[in-house]
């Protein structure tokens, strides 16, 4: 069945088709539509799951982790400030090895507060132990949720997974989405393996206990890291199985027109579709250019990324995030992976920060990025990281500042006049 769905709608359908048992929830823009759909379906009985609204995302994630540890298939969703409010529990419940799926609808972080997207929220959760899948289309959101449960519940992994989609650009954009048949989904994603269910009378356990000293602590943390890395070999099996059942393939990386590309854009999420459009236009004018879009960010698919990038002349890495005082997160991760190869003549890698707080990245900017990267490849001189911002934008900002100034002077004048 094909349906016109928003990214949020696709996420709700993903949870419904995964036949989840439990949905701890808390509203936050732009995620709320997901829990509204799920609330309607659980209330009407269309979906045999229990939804409960908690007092915060911190509580929501605690409940999600506890329920997953108790053996219920659990789904939850959040965004931005909510993800950060629950950050303590992201780390904690990953340490519980509680497998469930959390959808994050990316939204830029305060301050200043905004509702529009970038990846600062999701990348703040980068080191938590959650696996991360980044989506660019509504179909991908639904499919990734089903794949994410397979990953999370895999006996060699047992870690929670975040499926990420961009707020507004994907959460509120309608696209035709193919809904798999529930019967086929059950074959792809069998019921929860209750061997791991805790707390019931016949399976008492003291879970998430303290450790004394760095030895046992390191052991458990290394175990998490190794489990996460095992997802790199498990993921392709799941992707192949998904393709054989549903005819759609979602690799760890999407490589678009990269076969003979000299210059490759690298970026995550729905803004990568803008890069695709730029690739098509540049190809039309004869440039050998492509796009690599990492879908799996944790575990980090270093080998696949190196394979896709090592032989290029230039790589333009666009970060829709900003690590203050450092720069783009994706840039440092990708260049670190390439550095380990110790290539005799590595590609040049340029860094661009853009799309913060939903700021558009226009086609002409992709052309400029391409040009700068091609020139760097020719000259061997890598320009410093660039923050995308136009003179026009700066002029608009100056106008806003001027208005603020005028208003402030006016208030002072009125105050002095005693009115």
């Amino acid at each position, binding site marked *: 069945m094909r349906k016109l769905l928003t990214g949020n709608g696709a996420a709700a359908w993903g949870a419904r088709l995964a036949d989840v*048992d*439990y949905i*701890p929830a808390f509203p936050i823009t732009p995620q709320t539509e997901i829990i509204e759909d799920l609330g309607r379906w659980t209330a009407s009985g269309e979906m*045999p*799951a*229990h939804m*409960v609204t*908690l*007092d*915060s995302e*911190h*509580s*929501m994630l*605690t*409940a*999600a*982790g*506890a*329920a*997953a*540890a*108790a*053996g*219920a298939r*659990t789904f939850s969703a959040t965004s931005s400030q909510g993800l950060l409010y629950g950050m*303590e*529990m992201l780390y*904690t419940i990953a340490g*519980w090895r509680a497998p469930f799926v959390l959808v994050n609808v990316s939204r830029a972080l305060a301050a200043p507060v905004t509702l529009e997207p970038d990846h600062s929220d999701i990348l703040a959760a980068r080191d938590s132990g959650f696996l991360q899948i980044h989506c660019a289309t509504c179909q991908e959101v639904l499919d990734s949720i089903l794949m994410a449960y397979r990953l999370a519940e895999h006996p060699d992994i047992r870690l929670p997974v975040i499926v990420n989609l961009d707020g507004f650009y994907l959460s509120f954009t309608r696209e035709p989405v193919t809904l798999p048949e529930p019967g086929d989904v059950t074959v792809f994603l069998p019921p929860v393996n*209750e061997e791991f*269910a*805790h*707390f*019931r*009378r*016949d399976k*008492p*356990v*003291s*879970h*998430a*206990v*303290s*450790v*004394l000293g760095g030895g*046992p602590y390191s052991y458990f943390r290394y175990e998490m890291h190794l489990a996460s890395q095992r997802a790199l070999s498990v993921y392709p099996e799941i992707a192949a199985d998904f393709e054989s059942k549903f005819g759609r393939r979602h690799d760890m990386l999407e490589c678009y027109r990269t076969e003979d590309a000299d210059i490759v854009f690298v970026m995550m999420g729905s803004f990568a579709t803008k890069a695709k459009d730029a690739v098509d236009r540049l190809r039309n004018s004869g440039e050998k250019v492509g796009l690599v879009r990492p879908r799996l960010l944790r575990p980090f698919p270093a080998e696949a990324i190196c394979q896709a990038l090592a032989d290029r002349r230039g790589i333009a890495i666009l970060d829709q995030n900003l690590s203050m005082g450092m720069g783009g997160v994706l840039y440092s991760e990708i260049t670190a992976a390439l550095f380990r190869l110790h290539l005799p003549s590595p590609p040049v890698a340029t860094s661009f920060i853009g799309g913060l707080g939903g700021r558009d990245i226009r086609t002409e900017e992709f052309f400029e990025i391409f040009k700068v990267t091609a020139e760097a490849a020719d000259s061997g001189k890598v320009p410093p990281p660039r923050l995308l911002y136009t003179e026009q934008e700066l002029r608009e900002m100056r106008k806003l500042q001027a208005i603020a100034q005028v208003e402030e002077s006016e208030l002072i004048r009125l105050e002095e006049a005693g009115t």
Partner: protein
Amino acid sequence: MSDTHITRMKDLPSTHLLGAGTALCAGCGGLETLKEVYDILGPNTVFVNAAGCMTLMSIYPFTPFRGSWLYTAMASAPAGAQGIRDALDIMKKKGRLPADQDTQVVVLTGDGSASGMGLSATSGAIDRNLDFIYLCYDNEGYGNTGQQTSAETPLGARTSTDAVGVGFPREKKDLFSIWAANRPAYVATVIGSEPVDLAKKIEKARDMKGPRLIISLAPCPTGWGYTPEKTIDIGRLAVKTGVWPLKEYVDGKVTHTVVPGSRRPVEEYLALQGRFAHLFEPARNETLLAEIQQRVDDYWQGVSAAQVPA
């Protein structure tokens, strides 16, 4: 017919469930309470813990519990209880968990979590009428980090963050009333040194449904400044002086389960504890002593005949 079965010391369980050898301090009033509570609730329980002294109960690979335990975080133990309760209920409903494999969910936190950081999660659990027991061991400070002032620190107590002068200059928070105002199934105060009163209340709470709070005053040798063997004496004096009223809330009504006939002077309780030593040495602080006594007197003055058992 009585709704509880325990009426005297002889009725208390003679075998004890909680394992020994935990890392808690000698003379811990909280541990004393937990031991007594566990004997009544039995091993078919999952304790959901928040950051605090009890976090050291279970240190890998050892546990003193025959049932289950889950450490969460300081702010969200009631939310952990929600997740477990809901998961067990869903699995029962879907036929994946036999009813006899169900478990009683018990939140276990100190006062720092119960009356401070955890209040949001607690409030949510009460709103949702969560079927759980909340056991708070109230040692009147952030005990595990060295007795800093918490929301439950009483007037005049010195703590490591109110270490000079009159000590903590304000009121102890009334967690009992915060809960009772929201009409949960049950709220009770207990203390380990009154084991029969405690056992009766736990027995009653055990067989109820909905949110149930048990607050135990937990004398704390290290935090309150006394030697461990005095925990029982201090606990008894807390009751006899009227500082720690033993009471319960059911169906909109508060009843005092133990009413000290002629209350002993509060200073008998205070004088045993290093945190109040400044009230006596080098000179008696008559004003503050009188003020503390007055507050206790005022409390009991406000207890109506209807709040006392016939």
